[in-house]
């Protein structure tokens, strides 16, 4: 396993109470694999990805579990060795690429900064490599564009620059936190194609965070569904769509418009995400669940299934599972 997150729990201390943003989150990611993480807004997707990168907010405290990258426990290693990893071995791209780039530094310089930090190269080499990276993400006229500032580029181009920046040192893991929200559908497709292609080329693993189930379905090998800080289900993409086991997954699929659905077929999920402050029931979905049993509130959350397919539910949908 390239990355394995085990029983990770994380909370934020805020003035209005402790926010239990992640609880007992377990995930794993193999080399070259693409894992999608989906869920409603506020379900903890970004918090998870920031925890993996070690760039959590200062108010965050990990209360349990571990994150291992190639066997190295990221939570216990010191800041310097993490800095060595970040940007070199694992990299991240963000939503809203325009603001995610330094507005007053030429994009080429920003890429070169990362290369100089990790690549063991000279200034000239870094510059050349930056141009090369820009060319690789199909930015026309890369020499000139390397000197351009983010505000001189469109959103799609900025996202390409972000990708070039992330991939500059050839990381083994790419975390993409909603890389295409805010972009056009057509640009979104092109960007996703690019990520997919580059990942395949270098056998890079990708953690794709999105709230668009359709996108995850199209791009990922496996998908993890998150709800209120819990990973409720992990399954291969096609299986997840064909046979969702967790009631939340099923509802999420049903509420996503697809080319084939009709308005009548859209089924909204009742209720909303619980407030993560204060006491929470063992199953955080129970409140909204139509398959809730008395056990759900009494017994601790049960995770069942094998490595390829887990579900955190006492009463999963077993439908036409073989």
């Amino acid at each position, binding site marked *: 396993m390239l990355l394995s997150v085990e029983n990770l729990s994380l909370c934020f201390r805020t003035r209005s109470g402790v926010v239990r943003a992640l609880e007992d989150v377990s995930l794993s990611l193999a080399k070259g694999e693409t894992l999608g993480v989906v869920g409603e807004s506020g379900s903890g997707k970004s918090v998870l990805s920031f925890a993996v990168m070690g760039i959590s907010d200062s108010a965050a405290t990990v209360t349990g579990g571990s994150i291992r990258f190639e066997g190295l426990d990221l939570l216990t290693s010191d800041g310097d060795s993490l800095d060595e990893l*970040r940007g070199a071995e694992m990299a991240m791209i963000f939503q809203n690429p325009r603001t*995610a780039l330094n507005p007053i530094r030429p994009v080429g310089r920003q890429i070169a900064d990362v290369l100089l930090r990790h690549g063991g190269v000279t200034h000239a080499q870094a510059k050349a490599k930056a141009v090369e990276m820009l060319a690789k993400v199909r930015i026309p006229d890369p020499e000139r564009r390397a000197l351009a500032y983010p505000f001189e580029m469109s959103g799609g181009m900025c996202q390409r620059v972000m990708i070039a920046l992330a991939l500059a040192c050839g990381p083994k893991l790419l975390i993409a936190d909603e890389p295409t929200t805010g972009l056009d559908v057509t640009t979104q497709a092109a960007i996703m194609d690019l990520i997919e292609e580059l990942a395949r080329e270098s056998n890079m693993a990708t953690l794709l965070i999105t709230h668009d189930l359709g996108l995850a379905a199209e791009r990922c090998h496996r998908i993890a569904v998150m709800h209120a800080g819990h990973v409720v289900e992990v399954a291969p993409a096609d299986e997840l769509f064909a046979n969702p086991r967790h009631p939340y997954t099923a509802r999420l699929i049903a509420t996503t418009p697809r080319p084939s659905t009709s308005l009548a077929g859209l089924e909204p999920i009742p209720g909303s995400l619980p407030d993560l402050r204060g006491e929470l029931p063992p199953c955080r979905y129970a409140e909204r669940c139509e398959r809730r049993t008395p056990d759900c509130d009494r017994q601790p959350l049960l995770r069942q299934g094998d490595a390829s397919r887990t579900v955190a539910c006492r009463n999963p949908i077993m439908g036409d599972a073989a």
Partner: protein
Amino acid sequence: MPPVILLIAKRILGALPSIAAVVVVTFVLTRALPGDPAAYFAGPAADQESVEEIRRKLGLDKPLPVQFIAYLGDLAQGNFGTSLTTGQPVAADIAQRLPASVELTLCGLVLALVIAIPLGIAAATRPGSWVDHLARVISTAGVSLPVFFTGLLLVYIFYYLLGWAPAPMGRLDLFATAPPTITGFYLVDSLIAGDGAAFRASAAQLALPALTLGLFALAPLARMTRASMLGVLSSDFIRTARASGLSRGTVLVTYALRNALLPVVTTLGMVFSFLLGANVLVEKVFAWPGIGSYAIEALVASDYAPVQGFILTMAVMYVALNLMIDILYGLIDPRVRIEG
């Protein structure tokens, strides 16, 4: 760089109406001053008649618009009039005293920047901590003290009680000789002349007044640095930089600070205006032979020509300064550079 020259030309052109307005306002304001230069010139024992005679000679009996035209004519020839208090042409007085004021103001500003920026950064990197509160209290205290009070207090403590600072009487103590005038800044001139003694002497004289000004300018700068640093540190691109494993120093300085400086640079203009005002008081306390003390004396004596000359110089300087700030801003921020 032609675009820069174009920008400068445009800014100067844009400032002309303001300067024209300043000339008019200054003229009206100074003519409203209660003094009577004719009575002053007429001497101690003049009677009403001889005062009228002098008034006629000075052209002060003419209607204001006529006087204004005459004033404009003089201005066009670079003639700012003559000061009653020093008896010298105002232009010469200002030329001689301006470097003193500018040197002092700049030293105060530099001192403030040198303290304020690290303080602001320290506060922003640990918001809510004791450093933050301390920075806030220090800088707020600085701006809460009336400058003349700070100045007097510093003189009392460092000169009178402790004897660490030299006597507060101008730019050099009585024994040092001024370096040959090149820039008019004693610090610079003495370095050019290689005169270590003069440099030390002028630096020692500068220390307290510059500190007084610096304390005053500290607050807006530290506060702005803190606020903009906080904003920048929580922005997306800093997260990107951290996620790229860039070292803490690079993130803080190359990425965060440079961005955070933009609003600080803008505040500089305002701070400078405050400083020029505070300068007037500080110069009075420290017997600093700058244009501020010159202006106060003239104002209290209802001596128009120096007041007009002073305000005009200040306005021109302020416009020039804003121009410099714009250019500096453009150097830091490519966005304005392109939009021009």
